[in-house]
């Protein structure tokens, strides 16, 4: 690790720092707008909002390993991945608020962010459902022999779903360029990995598919995540799928409608241990060790991130809501007679 960080430029490290901090502030702002904001015009509403504080190093590190023509797809815990992939935070926040300027025009919401222009494919909320979609994208890239690969985030809980099993096997049979990155935060809602899974070491599942067993990396350490995902993506371009793991943690409850630490007292102690390895601090420590007198620069990035988030909120608040025409639009791609038979 110490050696690897040496090879990264200051610019890169600061950019990563900026993004991690931005995502953290973005998530905290979402939390605030949902729970504390009083002005209805500024509130985030609805029954689902899954924050990813704690997993920022996993999200940013993995996404940074992608080339511009590579792809990323994930489940509902998707804000950080969207931002890391370069989706405009204004449009992400607008989506949270259900505005027409949102990435999905306000029709997808927090769980269904996507931005086709940066090959960020969403944002799906049926556990496991996005995994075959990711495999399908990889199939296309192999079909056209592009050399591009797909990064598919998979929750530890999602591994027990039939979708993962069938899609993983198919990817292996067809040797498709895809990295299944198990985002192992040890829990799915309130169920611990030991309670849900006969196999508690996710990468050991690779054997069931004759798939390459990739590394298990420290998900709080962005450099380690980046290096490992990059290597596995490159391997997968030529050789087929890889199953790897990033060990991380969920600092908040599963979603807004629950509070993990209310419901499962037995998990209480664990949070403190993981908070001690906050991905922001882990990266800041690296940077500070490598560059002396960097504190002002980091503080400036913090301030900038706050500004970006505040701006995103203003942008979202001031954006128009979708109307009836939006409600009925895009159910089908236009079924004009001429189109239908062209």
């Amino acid at each position, binding site marked *: 690790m110490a050696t690897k960080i040496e090879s990264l430029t200051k610019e890169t490290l600061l950019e990563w720092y900026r993004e991690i901090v931005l995502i953290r502030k973005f998530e905290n702002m979402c939390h605030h707008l949902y729970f504390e904001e009083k002005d209805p015009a500024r509130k985030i*509403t*609805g*029954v*689902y909002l899954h924050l990813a504080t704690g997993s920022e190093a996993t999200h940013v590190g993995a996404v940074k390993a992608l080339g511009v023509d590579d792809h990323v797809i994930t489940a509902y815990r998707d804000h950080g991945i969207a931002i890391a992939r370069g989706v405009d935070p204004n449009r992400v926040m607008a*989506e949270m608020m*259900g*505005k027409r300027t949102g990435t*999905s025009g*306000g*029709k*997808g*919401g*927090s*769980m*269904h962010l996507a931005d086709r222009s940066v090959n960020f494919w969403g944002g*799906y*909320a*049926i*556990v*496991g*459902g996005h995994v075959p979609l990711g495999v399908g994208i990889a199939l296309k890239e192999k079909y056209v022999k592009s050399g591009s690969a797909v990064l598919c985030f998979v929750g530890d*809980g*999602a591994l*027990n*779903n*039939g979708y993962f099993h069938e899609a993983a096997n198919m990817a292996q049979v067809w040797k498709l360029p895809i990295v299944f990155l198990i985002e192992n935060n040890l829990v*799915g*809602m*309130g*169920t611990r990995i030991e*309670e*849900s*899974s006969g196999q508690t070491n996710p990468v050991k599942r690779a054997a069931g598919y004759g798939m390459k067993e990739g590394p298990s990396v420290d998900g709080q350490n962005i450099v380690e995540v980046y290096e490992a995902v990059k290597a596995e993506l490159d391997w997968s371009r030529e050789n087929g799928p890889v199953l790897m793991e990033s060990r991380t943690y969920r600092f908040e409850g599963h979603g807004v409608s*629950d509070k993990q630490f209310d*419901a*499962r007292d*037995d998990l209480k102690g664990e949070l403190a241990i993981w908070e001690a390895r906050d991905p922001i601090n882990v990266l800041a420590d690296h940077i500070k060790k490598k560059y002396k007198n960097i504190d002002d620069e980091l503080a400036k990035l913090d301030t900038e991130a706050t500004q970006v988030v505040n701006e995103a909120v203003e942008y979202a608040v001031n954006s128009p*809501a*979708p*109307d*009836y025409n*939006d*409600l*009925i639009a895009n*159910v089908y791609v236009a079924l004009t007679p001429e189109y239908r038979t062209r």
Partner: protein
Amino acid sequence: MKNLSMRDALRAALHEEMIRDERVFLMGEEIGKWQGTHRVTRGFYEEFGAERVRDTPISEMAIAGVATGAAMAGLRPVAEMMTINFAFLAFDAIINHAAKIHYMFNGQFTVPLVVRAATGWGNQATATHSHTPEPIWAHFPGLIVGCPSNAYDAKGMLKAAIRDENPILFTEVIALYPKPSPIPDEEYLIPIGESAVKREGDDVTIVSYGRGVEWSLEAAETLAKEDIQAEVIDIRWLRPLDMSKTLASFKKTNRCVVVEESLPHYSFGSEIAAQLQEAAFDYMDAPVKRVSALDVPLPYARDIELMALPNAQKVVQAVKEVL
């Protein structure tokens, strides 16, 4: 007699049946240590233990399939699908296994299984999480499908379901969980396949189930102010479908509106309308009108989502169209 929310009425039903019969056990995602996503099983893990309150992996096919096997073998599983949307993953397990086994093996096995599932929408849950697909499930013989409209019915219906020998899909409208009814202290059951008149009236028949009953009753109050008396029928069980009360009412009112939270096509309203015109053609003074969700996948943004949702106002308007 005490007031209980539908959540607590369901909880009481489960609790009584678990006490009454040791073969009854629960399985599903987050029902135990986490206390249930909708808190219907709050406290059960602590009271009944891990054998009878079984937290499962995120494996809907297996939840339904394993529960079916356990039911065949003599237990009485109550499996929870966190929401009915996820039950699509168990479509085959429920439709092509649970609902077929008794017939296919000519009665050798019975499947006394209850699959509970939260249903309904209107809280920005978006397209994949906003189904109320009861009619789709009720298409298939071998399955029983019920959906209560209030806490009182919920308790009696769920208890009857748990005691029944057939596989039952029992859906619970999320928006109704907090709503209270007076619940008697004595035990009661609501027979499977029995619809109910929820309000009497001579001018128009409104037929509904689940949350639609609430909109219908609200609409009936509004109409009453204009001296239009609506009779409101709660179908309660989409299968077996009891048309007796609806038919009797329609023969009196000669006009009918069907109200459903689900999508319009090949659905609940379709079946009720088709049956009425078939069975009571000579009594029809106007076409049967249907009030349902807008025919779109449901969006996230609050305002347009609500535009797509049926409500009492839309029911009132439909009634006026058939008068």
